């Protein structure tokens, strides 16, 4: 119900229209949304499993389906079918059977070892390694693509965590004020100065961090920035007449916070989302780069960047990661600026 009211709010409608009017930002938003959507259906685009196999008159769709041992298609092994080889064999036999591979016929984990070829190999459209391979022969495009998907998943949880904690603490400090505020601010100051990397290194030496743990650790050291904004916004809203009116009417504290103050700070919170997203992607990349991020075979931009700096003869590694990072983070920044402008349009005057 609350969301319905929010959607019908004419002010929100105006902001959305303004956002659509900012061309660069809106376009960036569409491109980002498209990329995110593509990554959801990534298995169809970048995968070592075939999209369609026609074998002896029957059709198989292995992408999301069950695992097919090689023997299903007359190959002499019982591990998973190598669809690229199968395709070549069927084409040679010329019996009318065929294999349709995704545009990038590799997954992010397989090492494409070919006789006489020593990875890393340079980009080659003939081998279908469009961005080359990394030091262990894994396809770079596939690793970038799935690394992006993992970074998005990480960012989604990270944003939820940071917002949840930051809003709760900031709102409490602003609402209750006084001693809570003073003590809270001191604690937040100490907390935000703690050497984050130090804690991460210690945790990484204790357990191999997985996605959940990494979200928790990075989140725990990133929520403090949010509290400053939230605290000020709560102070401001609390001083307004409508809150006093609600109090006089006998509304409970939780009702005032959740029905009155929080909805009114929502627009401020929305403007920070793109910047939090950018922060999430950059911190995950930095941690992976240093080797304290996700466990090793996970496709990741930071890990690729590290490979790139360690293998100076393979410049395609660094270039592909660099372009990806710049592209995605620029898009996110453009969206962020546009949202900010749409929510708080700047008056400007020119003289002359």
């Amino acid at each position, binding site marked *: 119900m609350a969301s319905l009211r929010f959607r019908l709010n004419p002010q929100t409608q105006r902001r959305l229209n303004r956002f659509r009017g900012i061309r660069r930002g809106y376009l960036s938003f569409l491109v980002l949304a498209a990329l995110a959507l593509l990554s959801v259906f990534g298995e169809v685009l970048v995968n070592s499993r075939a999209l369609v196999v026609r074998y002896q008159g029957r059709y198989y769709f292995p992408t999301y389906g069950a695992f097919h041992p090689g023997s299903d298609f007359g190959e002499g092994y019982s591990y998973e079918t190598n669809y690229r080889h199968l395709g070549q064999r069927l084409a040679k036999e010329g019996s009318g059977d065929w294999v349709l591979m995704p545009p990038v016929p590799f997954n992010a984990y397989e090492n494409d070892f070919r006789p006489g070829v020593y990875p890393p190999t340079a980009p080659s459209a003939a081998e279908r390694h469009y961005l080359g391979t990394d030091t262990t022969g894994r396809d770079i495009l596939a690793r970038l693509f799935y690394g992006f998907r993992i970074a998005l998943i990480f960012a989604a949880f990270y944003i939820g965590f940071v917002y949840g904690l930051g809003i709760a603490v900031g709102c409490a400090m602003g609402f209750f004020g006084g001693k809570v505020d003073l003590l809270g601010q*001191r604690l937040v100051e*100490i907390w935000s100065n703690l050497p984050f990397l130090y804690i991460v290194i210690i945790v990484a030496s204790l357990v191999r961090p997985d996605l959940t743990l990494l979200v928790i650790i990075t989140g725990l050291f990133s929520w403090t920035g949010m509290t400053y904004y939230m605290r000020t916004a709560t102070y401001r809203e609390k001083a307004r007449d409508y809150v006093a009116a609600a109090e006089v009417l006998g509304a409970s504290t939780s009702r005032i916070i959740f029905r009155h103050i929080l909805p009114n700070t929502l627009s401020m919170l929305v403007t920070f989302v793109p910047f939090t997203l950018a922060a999430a992607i950059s911190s995950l990349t930095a941690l992976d780069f240093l080797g304290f991020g996700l466990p090793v075979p996970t496709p990741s931009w930071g890990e690729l960047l590290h490979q790139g700096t360690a293998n100076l003869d393979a*410049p395609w590694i660094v270039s592909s*990661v660099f372009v990806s990072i*710049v592209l995605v983070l620029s898009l996110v920044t453009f969206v962020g600026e546009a949202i900010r402008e749409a929510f708080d349009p*700047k008056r400007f*005057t020119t003289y002359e």
Partner: protein
Amino acid sequence: MRAYFLRRFLLIPPTLLGLTLVVFFITRFAPGGPLEQALMRAQQSSLEHSSSRASGQGTALSEDQIAQLKHYYGFDRPWYVAYVQWLGKVAQGDLGTSFRYNEPVWDLIRERFPISAFFGLTTLVLTYSVCIPLGILKAIRHRTWVDTGSSLLIFAGYAVPGYVLGALLLVFGAARMRWFPMGGFVSGNFADLTAGGKVTDLLHHAVLPLCCYLIGGFAFTTLLMKNQLMDVLAADYMRTAVAKGVSYRRAVIGHALRNAIIPLATDFGQNLTLFLTGSFLIENIFDIDGFGLLGYNSTLDRDYPVVMGVLLLSSLLLLVGNLISDALVALADPRIRFG
């Protein structure tokens, strides 16, 4: 006003105490610390020893030796006692001795600090001397080709983390093209060079890392300057000034600029400390033996005296930096009353 700054100043020590206490506590209970490392090393060497001599020795170290090690690393006292002892030494200007380098921590810091400070101060000077004029230009020429063209570059720059650019520059600018050295602060034969050669060598090494340091703050400062100035340009007093015949140039410089520059002052203190302590990611890529890398390596090595020393100094700088920011804001805008 004086009371406010006095209070802020007095709040620095408790914050520092809280910070160091938390980290000290962690160093005591985190596994894989220096004591365990030393025990492991001893065990390994005794294993090699016994296999070569084929004579079985039960344990690697005697109780006595373990107690000695514990004493050396300061683990023979409860943590709060050790913390108070550490504090007492710090009060006398002694940060302890590094486990790894076996040198006084203060000497290690003093050696590396100027390196990070060199990059930091150069970055700061370059950033402000380019960004303020550029921001002004962009504000005055809002939505002309000057503004739009530089905006694209600036946004891309804003989006790129410095060390990511560093990786690219290292591979292309240094390794492939050989335009610049691969890393380090100066060449190995620096001491033998002439004065002119020294300057050239230093600058030659500094170009790539400086690019990385510059890129982030550059975009941020320019945009801040532009947005603030545009806000001020729309203010009524500016319209009045122009209407009554003050030249545009004088109106911008005399009326608008001072007000627009206040938010930049808020950032100055933080920037100063950020740059003084260096970025370990950039120092890591270019192999510059600065303050940031010292902190990072000491954490990796569990070199606790260095960890504590670096933490103490960088947090002190940070807190002082915040204070400087507030003082600058007060200087730039006498209307602001801190309470």
